[in-house]
């Protein structure tokens, strides 16, 4: 979470411009009008609170995401851009696919970030359905790409499947026990710990969101208890079920291609009672 500006700092043209510049490139254009309309959703005295929440938003642009992916993959033991200098076989796979945005999009970004756009690198990039045929052994490595993990619940379920329901997990596709990495742009600390504990995936997030990144937690010192209570009232209006964000994560992170649902709903909810600045559609 970024440090918000001091309380009472005017919402002037310069501040508007700084938000505008920082949030440029979101899938839905963040215009001055949109910001003003959003701020008007806060009652008079709370407008400053809304503005400070916007200050605190951690917005990751495509170049930030690429840098994170480049950095994480670059540190993997045995990895080298040159095939002859790599240890074992390497395969890159999208983790989530159904939305066609997160895993797929990160996989694509990794090609540009790592300078692997040439055809000679095509063999690195495979589908999940190719994993079994790839016959990867203990010396080999599979790198899964995704954008975000909030609590790790989805990744753990994805890994193990759900035997009670006859649902298979990713582990079944990797019988040769290769080294498995999950490279993420960002992740909650809870997610990193849980995935590491419950699966064979080594999680490598570009940014880790700790307890202080939960805007409602006591560890977050940027907002007072009273401000947190007020914010919660607005969040409840935005999403009655998950006012603190999915699984109570309370994050204020926004990725240029989509806001994670673990972020607080005032940022992304979009319905008659609340119009977020960063809708997820």
């Amino acid at each position, binding site marked *: 979470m970024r440090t918000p500006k001091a309380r009472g700092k005017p919402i002037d043209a310069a501040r508007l411009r700084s938000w505008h510049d920082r949030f440029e490139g979101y899938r839905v254009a963040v215009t001055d009008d949109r910001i003003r309309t959003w701020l008007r959703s806060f009652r008079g005295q709370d407008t400053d609170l809304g503005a400070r929440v916007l200050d605190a938003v951690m917005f990751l642009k495509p170049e930030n995401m690429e840098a994170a992916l480049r950095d994480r993959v670059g540190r993997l033991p045995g990895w080298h851009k040159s095939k002859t200098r790599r240890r074992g076989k390497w395969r890159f796979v999208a983790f*989530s696919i159904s939305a066609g945005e997160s895993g797929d999009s990160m996989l694509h970004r990794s090609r540009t970030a790592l300078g692997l756009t040439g055809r000679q690198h095509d063999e690195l990039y495979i*589908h999940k359905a190719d994993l079994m045929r790839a016959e990867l052994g203990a010396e080999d490595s599979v790198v899964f790409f995704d954008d975000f993990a909030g609590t790790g619940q989805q990744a753990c*379920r994805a890994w193990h*499947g759900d*035997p009670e*329901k006859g*649902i298979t997990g990713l582990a079944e596709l990797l019988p040769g026990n290769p080294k498995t990495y999950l490279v993420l742009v960002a992740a909650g600390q809870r997610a990193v710990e849980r995935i590491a504990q419950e699966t064979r995936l080594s999680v490598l997030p570009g940014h880790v969101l700790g307890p202080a990144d939960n805007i409602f937690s006591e560890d977050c010192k940027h907002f007072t208890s009273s401000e947190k209570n007020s914010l919660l009232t607005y969040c409840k209006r935005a999403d009655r079920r998950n006012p603190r964000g999915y699984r109570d994560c309370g994050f204020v992170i926004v990725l240029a291609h989509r806001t994670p649902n673990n972020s607080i709903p005032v940022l992304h909810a979009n319905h008659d009672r609340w119009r977020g600045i960063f809708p997820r559609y």
Partner: protein
Amino acid sequence: MTKHSKVLVVEPVGVKTLRTDQLQANPYNPRMLFDKAPMQTLEKSIKHVGILVPLTVYQRESDGKFFILDGQRRWICAQKLQMLKVPVNQVAEPSLVQNIVTMFQIHKLREDWELMPTALKLDLLMEQLKEKSERKLAELTGLDVAVVTRCRKLLSYSKRFQDLMLDPDPDKRVKADFFIELYPFLHDRVVAKTPYSRPDLTQKMLEKYQSPHGGIKAVTDFRKAKQHITNARKAGKLTALSRRLDEFVEKVELTPDHLLIPAADVSAQARSLHSTVEKLHDALRKLDVEAYVGEEDLWSALESLLATIRKCLTAAGRRVKE
């Protein structure tokens, strides 16, 4: 001995005991779901008499770890009973093919398991053994031929569609049934003549299925679509069908009923009626009249039928002979 026997049989190494915690489940069989009642019976038996049949294990050369080929339930019971050691029959590390075949043979596939991972294993077997016969693959794996056929249908789709059946979020996975039901529609000869490639058609049908306003509400809707196409083809209504097929593919909201060509539908019913008439005709020709002479209800029904037939023929302008 079949032509594959040599490559499929694992070689024995010897019987010994191993520490229970030295063993690991076979990574080719992560489907560790066993019925509770038989497990409790087995646990009781092991508690009383120990493990009488050694587990079959192999040692992985790359890291020295032991994996269970057969005896996963005995191993689970031994862990519950806190047995420190278990008897094992060690075999040589199986090849990939041997391992997959063994797993198929030992662990009967539950019907409700997702099919795609099974299809991928079958794909590996086909590739390694250069075997394409569904009957032979069924014999090798112990799977029903029908299951092998279904797996092969799934494997006919491009990887991006196969991946949709493997989405990490099980709630977002496209069920294999969608692709299996779609298969006959995609491979219909009339559909094949449309300007769309199979991947394009698959994508369009997926959108029709997944969109809240899409015209495919259930995977069985493809059967209806196929039926309408077949009827239209048999009735020689291909021009009308072709136009409707294009519209059906392009407009997400159109249901399979859009492919129903009324005239073609009548033809289908006529063919069905014709077949019934032929069956009745055949039965009547073979009828031993003397044997049935006392069956009054039958003769009354036939008289009534004759009257109806005369009426229909007259109405259709046919000459009715007395």
